[in-house]
């Protein structure tokens, strides 16, 4: 059964560094059906209307974290947002806020990736074990302490939601700090002291002012605001006791 064809206007913030001094809006009329995502709308533009529009995408099912963009001003995964929600109005798509625009809807993720590497986002075993010694065991409660933070897909929506990162790009930012906490909160991990040096630094947990929007926009329920803010108490204790505790972490 064919739906009557509906047409929605999509405004795309274009930026072509070789010709645009600054980003400009360009409008496209896109025919769509109710099951089409915003990503499919943008793909329609590229395939049928204007092949020069650039954007990132991969999985189309909210797991790769590539297709994040500002949709009517809100950071969203475009594969998980539907055109029908905006019809009969139009919608605006723009590269993720707070990150430099590389071209059109593509941001420069270099800063994010560098920060991600710096926190060593992998388990540093507390005690090395041989195969014969068996697996690292964990109770359901120990698992629950970090599980939600481990759902991060590095989509950077939380960076586009964080005004503190926009105002000061030195701030490590929500996603990376949530992953820092994810590994530190894991009972099998022994790398917490070196990660906390980054967490307790000025650019770490204290750069957060608990706006909380990062947790609101996270498509995976990671709750970065919670991961960050629960560390402030220990950071404060560490700050005041570092002179009396032998080998106290942090500077």
């Amino acid at each position, binding site marked *: 059964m064919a739906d009557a064809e509906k047409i929605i206007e999509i405004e795309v913030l274009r*930026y072509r*560094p*070789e010709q645009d001094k*600054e*980003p400009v809006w360009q409008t496209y009329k896109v025919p769509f059906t109710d099951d089409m995502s915003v990503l499919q709308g943008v793909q329609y533009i590229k395939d049928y209307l204007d092949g020069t529009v650039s954007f990132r995408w991969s999985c189309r099912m909210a797991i790769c974290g590539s297709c994040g963009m500002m949709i009517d*001003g*809100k950071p969203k995964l475009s594969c998980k947002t539907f055109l029908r929600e905006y019809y009969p109005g139009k919608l605006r798509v723009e590269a993720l*806020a*707070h990150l*430099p*625009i*590389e071209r059109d809807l593509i941001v*420069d993720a270099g800063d994010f990736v560098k920060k991600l590497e710096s926190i060593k986002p992998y388990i540093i075993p507390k005690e090395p074990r041989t195969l014969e010694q068996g697996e690292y065991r964990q109770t359901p*409660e120990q698992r*629950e*302490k970090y599980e939600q933070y481990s759902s991060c897909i590095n989509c950077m929506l939380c960076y586009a939601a964080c*005004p503190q990162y*926009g*105002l000061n790009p030195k701030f490590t930012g929500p996603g990376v700090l949530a992953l820092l906490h994810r590994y530190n909160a894991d009972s099998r991990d022994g790398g917490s002291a070196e990660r906390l040096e980054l967490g307790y630094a000025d650019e770490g947990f204290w750069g957060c*002012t*608990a*706006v*909380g*929007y990062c*947790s*609101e926009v996270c498509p995976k329920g990671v*709750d970065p*605001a*919670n991961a960050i*803010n*629960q560390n*402030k108490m220990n950071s404060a204790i560490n700050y005041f006791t570092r002179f009396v505790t032998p080998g106290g972490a942090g500077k």
Partner: protein
Amino acid sequence: MSNRRPYVRSMDGWWKRDVYFIRYMAREVTALFVAAYAVVLLVGVLRLSQGQAAYEAWLQALKSTPSLVFHLILLATFVYHTWSWFNIMPKTMPIMFVGGKRVQPGTITGTGLAAAVVACLAVFFIVRGMHP
């Protein structure tokens, strides 16, 4: 040679961009009203140190219409202050378990708000008890 020229957008007026940011700024700005009320109380302490007449005059000034209006505004901002801070409180707490079950954010906010209401009522009745 690279043709890259990443464009950094301005943050001017960022807090007006999203209603979520406006609510955040409103929460932060209530701290100024809390500070203002602290100043009112400190003036009271200062007037008390200046003797009974000065203190009575301060009490009288508190009963004036502008002062009552000001206190109503303070009360409204305090209510928002209390609500917004307990609302963000679950974000500031480590994951907790009671009886093997994770404590839900709503429970943390609700407990905080209930404690605030109980504290307010307790203060109200204690003060009323001092002025029969």
